[in-house]
């Protein structure tokens, strides 16, 4: 496997990989969203339990992805605990990456994908459950949401290239 290059992780990535916080499907989730695609080798599902004050009381994740992907998703669930949706929306991939002690540059997209999945969940909540859009929620897609879309588009391209999907 010629082009395989080992990537040094910050200890926090390994710690969360070993003992991921908030792992697993949530049966009574208010909203569920996923980002990425198995074809890309990178997929995160987020489960959020949201109360009547638009606060995240509980969140969990599942990840089909590398150690960074798992750690980024887990880290984000820790960061958004008991935060309002507006506060949670404002976390960026950079915040996730910093909390993990930095991600190798080739892995920054893992943080971005976690944020993309969370934002998708928040949008879904307002679109489908609240059926209203708060002022702080941007109309246009943010960078991290676009990243998730790009990755899904890449998966489709890969699939077509190998005539598999």
């Amino acid at each position, binding site marked *: 496997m010629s082009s395989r290059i080992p990537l040094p992780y910050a200890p926090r990535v390994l710690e969360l990989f070993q003992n991921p916080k908030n792992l697993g499907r949530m049966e009574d989730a208010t909203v569920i969203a996923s980002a990425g695609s198995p074809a890309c*080798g990178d997929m995160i599902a987020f489960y959020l339990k949201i109360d009547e004050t638009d606060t995240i009381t509980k969140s969990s994740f599942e990840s089909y992805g590398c150690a960074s992907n798992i750690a980024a998703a887990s880290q984000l669930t820790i960061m958004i605990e008991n935060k309002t949706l507006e506060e949670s929306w404002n976390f960026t991939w950079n915040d996730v990456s910093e909390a993990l002690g930095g991600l190798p540059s080739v892995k920054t997209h893992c943080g971005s994908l976690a944020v993309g999945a969370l934002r998708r969940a928040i949008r879904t909540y307002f679109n489908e459950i609240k059926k209203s859009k708060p002022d702080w929620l941007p109309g246009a897609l943010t960078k991290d949401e676009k990243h998730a879309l790009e990755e899904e588009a890449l998966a489709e391209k890969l699939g077509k290239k190998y005539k598999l999907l």
Partner: protein
Amino acid sequence: MSEIDKLLDQHGKAITEVYLDWENGSKIEKEVLDAMIPFYLDRKFGNPAITHRFGWETYDFYIGAKKTIAKPLNINPQSLAITQSFTESNNIAIKGIVKANKKKKKIILSEVEHLSVIHAAKSLYDEGVKVEIIPVTNDGVVNLDILQEKLDDDTLLVSIQAVNHEIGTIQPVKEAYEIVKDKNEEIIFHSDATSAFGRLPLDYSKLEVDLATISSDRILGPKGIAGLYVKEGIKIRPLYEGQLSVEILSPDVENSPLLAGFAKAVELQFARFDEINAETSRLRDKLLYGFQTTIPRTDINGPQGQNRAPDNVNISFLGCEGEALTVESSMNGIYASSGSACTSRVLMPSHILTAIGRKPEEAHGSLLMKLTRLNTEEEIDYVLETMPKVIKRIRSITGGIQL
């Protein structure tokens, strides 16, 4: 404490450790190191191209060591060029042939060649070189009908590996060579035998090729030294210029300690050739079929039985992402690699696994293990006992994500 120290501290160290990532990094044995030491510390460090006692002593050794390495290939030691890596050998085989033969412009390769072959060929686009890629079967076998179709009057070089480095496919080199030479005697045939040397009989007096790559580190010799067999009469040029040295294709100062280590590794591997390969084949099958029996949703990548190189284990665990798999295996003391996109900087799955029709999510869940004469039955038992829980944990993280 450095960040890496902290990382390793967090990682911990398993009580039992089994190293199976020989494809990506190998060690040498004490016996090999002992063979190298005199060339670092004692007399034989002289330059074999110089006319004094130290030089002649080294020259005498140099010729002898090349004989040792050439012997299992049944070739004239003079036709074995010593290089610094199989990557260099493959680059010389492709670019050196193009440099020396300007008239014809087409190179034909298989889709599953090592990237050092594929990239070397594609780097010549600017010089007007055309590269044709031959597809493979689901077992990774080069499609010879398509090879035949692609051969034409403009074809300069065909490069077909002897064994695939990732999935262990033994390629029909003899048949490919005959097809090529039937078309035109002048078409040059290179075979990257990096993963075959020491694993399969390679008697180049019978199994004909014009050029072949071999490497020291693949048979537990030192890194930094490899070989390129060039049949007498083949026109080839070095890739860079240097002083007048014994080696024309790699004009550096001869590295006698590495050559001594290479020669010793050849002796060790070939003295017990049949025994080593019978044993690794047995352990290979024990691993492959053991995984299939104890772990659900697995798929063997590459051929089985006699058609597979004796040292190669490559299996996909569906619902597992390979990078996470290598990290979790590592924490359990098992060291292997994956064809997952996440383990590469380009974030693309292994070109070999996609060439044999594996879906990206199957390629992402692949694990490559190789066996050498140093692996033991106890190690394989430990791997078989441990991997089910490794897979179970990674699958528990994947959870309900639909694959």
